[in-house]
């Protein structure tokens, strides 16, 4: 491999199911320059970058990066250190609840930088990117442009040799975009040896790159400098060149977007905003916005990220009530509850918000029905939508499998299926490639000019803004300017709308946004030894900060167990008392009353109103009102006096066998004491008739009170259910939000990652354990009779096992919903039924016993009950400790095996 190429792909093919994302691609990407990948969505740009960065496993072909084979584990680890990868999506690899500084600090720790080094680097980077004034702002509250700058900072913190950026400026406003590229240029000037590979959908950005590879349909169709590519296609701009180079099939149907002039209409404006304002707490997102949009007009809405565009649009759809001011639709005040207005409006939100589990056709049908299209024309309308939005070929596919451009077309089709008069579209083309965008605009123009639909659309693309009848510029909750694109450009004395826009924003933002170029970070030092512990600690620290900021979750984690211990301590008891019973006394003699007094005097039984007939007794037993019915026959007294052993019938409700069994025991005891009573009456003294005594000694719990057995068991339950569920979210949440990329693209190992994820939950569980001890002692007076140390060590091992179990679940589930379910449902049965909580493990049979012993709960139950009530220590319980340690090791090891460092 020559020095001049940073990555070399040879016959690389990558399949997702039957679909080839990359189809036999061979490519040399030059080193030490800005290399760009251009092409529409779904052509394999992201896959290619993921393969080069090592976050995805190579399926077929060879990938050489930084002078070595990426499939070689040793070289991959080296690459993880030398490559920085910024995944697609706004701030996808950032942690929204962490502040700007904390995010960067986390990445610094991943690369084992010392405290002083991190501080210096972070200060430099923040200065260079203009983020210096906001080190304490949570990343989730940053605007899109700022998020991308922060993301870039986190990529640059370890001075990478290769910087890989996957569509870094998609969805970012022009000013931020310009600042972003200026920043990259400055950094490259300072570190000329660094190679940069970028994928982008903005052709005007690609013009400034040193080298380009144009891709289409999993293949590279052209490489070279922008000038070479333009020259080869004989087109003036890169965008046109790209379209010209496409194979005929992909280009078909593409034509220049021409906006016919609008016929002015009369009547009230379709949309009016009058001093519209919306505040969230003390933050004013939209501040006194005014504008009128006429019928049939295409009204563009431009502004930096987070300037209040989305909030304004949500107020116009009625999704958000305005704090003050008015929104009018067709001259009438917007009433969110009015179903008639809703039928006149179509809305398309910024992110994809259709049902991914329904097919394209099913999504359309659902909306047709919800919008109450007449049954007769419904099917026809669905077909019409599929034809006019070119969806017929993908009708039976699910949206998640489709490229973004097609998904957005589907969203638009859904938004217009009911023929609305007003369309509100929030960044509908963000992330969509040029051809698909043009096609999308053909539809919009058709809707406006042909059907007279009013369109209110926000965008970051200047060529789209140019097509609008009028546009408005928004910044920090206020409208800066409204007018036709030409007018707006003129006010700033320029021909270019883009320049005018940037000028407006610079003016409005003041000096604050101006980035100051400083010395970019420098200073090389080899990663120190012991980086492994540091990386694990970085993940543990980050996870802890996230939990500590989620007050609700933290509160539930600590309060839940305490509430459960209180309810169980007071509520669960196997001391059955006050069994309701009713009597049918057909005898009504002194003898029968004596017998019945034995019942009414017992604390085990509670007398209810007497019954009048056997049938009534039966009915009341059946309804569950009484637990036993006593029937004394008519001649009871006479027979008793004649020593003829009269019968007394007692029917016990055995629906709940445990209660019935206990009741039978009580009845036996009651009969015996009745007999003693009778003997005493007959003979005048108590005669002990038994041949031997049985001395029953209840060990460990002399008073035989349930609470002494319940409290240790509740601790056993709480330390498995809650920690496993919390830990189960750990990995799967990162998968869902996308920050798992940080694990894939940095030198952190699987074990470090898993332990780092697990440790905070171990700490939480141990604190919860201590609070439970306090409650056990303070409220129930239950103390640890045996070795406190044995209990503590047991709890620690148990919690390591239960959180390990949670992490294991989260390595193979895909969604948080599934992880919650799996953790709760899989752990609850062995913990409640087979752990010795209800039935001693020694009495369990067959499968139950195996399930019990195959789960940590049964082992900790021994330790918990042993130390609390039996007064035991390590000497008696060490096998249980050993078993728990074994579980912890097995679960963690299984998680390490199940978790893949590279995506498939």
């Amino acid at each position, binding site marked *: 491999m020559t020095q001049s190429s940073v990555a070399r792909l040879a016959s690389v093919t990558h399949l997702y199911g039957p679909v080839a994302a990359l189809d036999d691609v061979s490519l040399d990407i030059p080193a030490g320059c800005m290399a760009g990948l251009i092409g529409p969505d779904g052509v394999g740009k992201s896959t290619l970058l993921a393969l080069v960065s090592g976050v995805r496993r190579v399926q077929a072909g060879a990938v050489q990066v930084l002078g070595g084979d990426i499939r070689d584990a040793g070289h991959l680890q080296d690459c993880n250190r030398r490559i920085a990868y910024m995944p697609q999506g706004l701030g996808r690899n950032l942690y929204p609840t962490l502040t700007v500084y904390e995010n960067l600090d986390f990445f610094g720790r991943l690369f084992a930088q010392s405290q002083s080094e991190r501080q210096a680097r972070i200060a430099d980077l923040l200065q260079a990117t203009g983020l210096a004034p906001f080190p304490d702002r949570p990343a989730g509250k940053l605007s899109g442009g700022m998020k991308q700058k922060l993301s870039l900072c986190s990529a640059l913190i370890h001075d990478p040799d290769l910087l890989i950026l996957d569509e870094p400026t998609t969805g970012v406003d022009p000013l931020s975009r310009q600042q972003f590229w200026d920043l990259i240029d400055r950094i490259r000037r300072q570190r000329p040896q660094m190679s940069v590979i970028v994928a982008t959908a903005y052709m005007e950005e690609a013009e400034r790159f040193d080298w380009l590879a144009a891709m289409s349909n999993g293949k590279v169709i052209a490489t070279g400098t922008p000038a070479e590519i333009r020259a080869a296609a004989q087109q003036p701009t890169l965008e046109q060149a790209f379209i010209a180079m496409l194979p005929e099939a992909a280009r078909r149907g593409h034509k220049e977007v021409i906006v016919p002039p609008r016929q002015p209409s009369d009547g009230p404006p379709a949309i009016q905003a009058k001093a519209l304002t919306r505040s969230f707490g003390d933050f004013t997102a939209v501040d006194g916005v005014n504008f009128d949009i006429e019928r049939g007009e295409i009204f563009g809405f431009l502004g930096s990220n987070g300037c209040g565009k989305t909030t304004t649009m949500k107020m116009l*759809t*009625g*999704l*958000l009530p305005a704090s003050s001011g008015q929104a009018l639709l067709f001259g009438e005040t917007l009433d969110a509850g009015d*179903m*008639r207005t*809703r039928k006149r409006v179509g*809305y398309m*939100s910024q992110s*994809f*918000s259709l*049902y991914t589990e329904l097919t394209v056709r099913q999504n359309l049908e*659902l909306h047709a029905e919800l919008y*109450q299209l007449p049954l007769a024309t419904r099917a026809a309308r669905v077909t019409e939508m599929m034809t006019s939005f070119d969806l017929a070929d993908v009708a039976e596919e699910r949206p998640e499998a489709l490229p973004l451009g097609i998904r957005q077309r589907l969203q638009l089709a859904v938004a217009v299926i009911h023929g609305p008069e007003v369309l509100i579209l929030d960044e509908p083309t963000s992330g969509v490639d040029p051809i698909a965008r043009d096609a999308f605009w053909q539809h919009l123009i058709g809707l406006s000019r042909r059907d007279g639909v009013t369109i209110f659309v926000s965008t970051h693309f200047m060529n789209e803004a140019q097509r609008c009848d009028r546009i408005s510029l928004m910044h920090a909750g206020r409208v800066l300017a409204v007018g036709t694109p030409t007018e707006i450009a003129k006010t700033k004395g320029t021909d270019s709308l883009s320049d005018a826009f940037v000028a407006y924003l610079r003016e409005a933002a003041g000096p604050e946004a101006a980035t100051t170029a400083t010395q970019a970070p420098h200073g090389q030092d080899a990663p120190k030894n012991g980086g492994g512990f540091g990386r694990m600690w970085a993940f543990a620290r980050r996870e802890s900060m996230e939990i500590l900021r*989620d007050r*609700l*979750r933290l509160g539930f984690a600590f309060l*839940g167990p305490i509430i459960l211990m209180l309810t169980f301590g007071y509520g*669960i008891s196997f001391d*059955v008392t006050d*069994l309701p019973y009713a009597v049918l006394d057909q005898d009504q003699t002194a003898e029968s009353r004596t017998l019945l007094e034995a019942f009414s005097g017992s604390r085990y039984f509670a007398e209810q109103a007497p019954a009048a007939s056997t049938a009534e007794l039966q009915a009341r037993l*059946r309804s*569950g009102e009484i637990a036993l019915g006593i029937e004394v026959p008519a001649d009871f007294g006479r027979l*008793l006096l004649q020593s003829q*052993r009269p*019968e007394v019938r007692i029917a*016990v*409700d*055995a*629906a*709940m*066998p*445990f*209660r019935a069994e206990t009741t*039978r025991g009580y009845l*036996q*005891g009651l009969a015996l004491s009745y007999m003693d009573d009778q003997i005493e009456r007959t003979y005048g003294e108590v005669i*002990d008739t038994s041949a*031997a005594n049985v001395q*029953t000694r209840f*060990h460990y719990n*002399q008073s035989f009170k*349930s609470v002494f057995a319940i409290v*240790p068991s509740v601790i056993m*339950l709480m330390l498995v*259910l809650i920690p496993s569920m919390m830990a189960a*979210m750990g990995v799967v949440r990162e998968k869902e939000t996308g920050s798992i990329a940080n694990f894939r693209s940095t030198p952190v190992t699987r074990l470090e990652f898993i332990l780092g994820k697990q440790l905070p939950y171990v700490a939480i569980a141990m604190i919860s354990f201590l609070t439970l001890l306090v409650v056990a002692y303070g409220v129930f007076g239950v103390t640890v009779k045996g070795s406190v140390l044995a209990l503590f060590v047991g709890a620690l091992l148990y919690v390591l096992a239960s959180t390990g179990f949670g992490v294991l679940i989260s390595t193979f589930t895909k*969604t*948080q*919903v*599934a992880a919650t*379910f799996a953790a*709760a449902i899989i752990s609850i049965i062995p913990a409640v*039924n087979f752990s010795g909580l209800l*039935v*001693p*493990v*020694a009495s*369990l049979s*067959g499968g139950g016993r195996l399930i019990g012993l195959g789960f940590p709960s049964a082992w900790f139950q021994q330790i918990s009950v042993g130390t609390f009530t039996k007064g035991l220590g390590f000497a008696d319980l060490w096998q249980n400790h050993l078993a728990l340690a074994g579980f912890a090791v097995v679960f963690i090891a299984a998680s390490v095996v199940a978790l893949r460092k590279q995506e498939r």
Partner: protein
Amino acid sequence: MKQWLSNIYRLGLKELRSLRADPVLLLLIAYVFSFAVYAVATGAKLEVVNASVAYVDLDRSDLSGRIIGAILPPEFDTPKEIAASDVELMMNDGDYVFVLVFPPRFEADVLAGRQPSLQLNVDATAMVQAGNGSVFLQEIIAAEINKFVARDDTETSLPIDLIVTAQFNPNLQSTWFSSVMQVINNVTILSVLLTGAALIREREHGTIEHLLVMPVSPSEIMLAKIWANGLAIIIAAVLSLWLVVQGVLGVPIAGSVTLFVAGTVLYLVSVTGLGILLATFTTSMPQFGLLALPVLVIMNLLSGSTTPMESIPVWLQNVMQVAPSTHFVSFAQAILYRGAGFDTVWPDMLVMAGLSAAFFIAALLRFRKTMAATG
């Protein structure tokens, strides 16, 4: 009205499709209604079964042998002999719940009428078995001693003939109880988790926003979730009753399954409503999971489906009246075990209907408020 119903129907179909598209969830539903029911019903029994007994025989007489020989399955495991010095150790380890100690010269003392003492050691931490098991053992011991000394029967027997009949489950088989109760507990768990998660998923994916700009009202969205998830659960529950409880486990069902299904529908409305209500208090799955877990555990353990309602303190019994599970368990026990009819169970059904309405309205109010609050 017609449109309202049609929207609920349509949105519900969508819910069912979502459910069908999630194989992990389907697998878990199948697991809880089949294997889990079977394992719990056959594995963990609340009555005295297989209780572990050991003995120390310092007498080695005919009588001690007879007593040991009378301790039989299924209530007790065959007793194992252990050394006197091991009693404490083995009980500490939880190896045996009961340990009998026959003193030296036990038989001789019995015959001489010296009323010797036989020691029965019970591990009182084994809550469920300790109480009833010791009563049984005492019964067995007394009977064997009586037979052995062969006294006149009439003298020791009771002056009355106490005929105790166990109704609705004559052999006191706990499989009958725990299988059905496990189905009920699973209905509770799944209803709350499925509907709550369905709402949170829509919020996290932004689809709820999409629904709210359409001519669809929150009550339609909620009712659709209730009927669709409820339907899936009720089908699973009824199949579980037929195939697992009646089929595999051979538990007879006394009352009308139709009436049971009617009551289950009421119950499902209330618990799915509760699931939505809980979901409106949280913003993410981790929060929802942590909130739902204690609620579910309390609803299941204190509803009378695990421990007898009578043994719960009265104030807590009163609190538990707010939980629909308490009424459903009472309803289900009446129908499925005792064969009760509508005339008996209507009060429980009325309360469940009331609770359904209350949860639904509370959830609806919260729904409107929280959806407006999210920016």
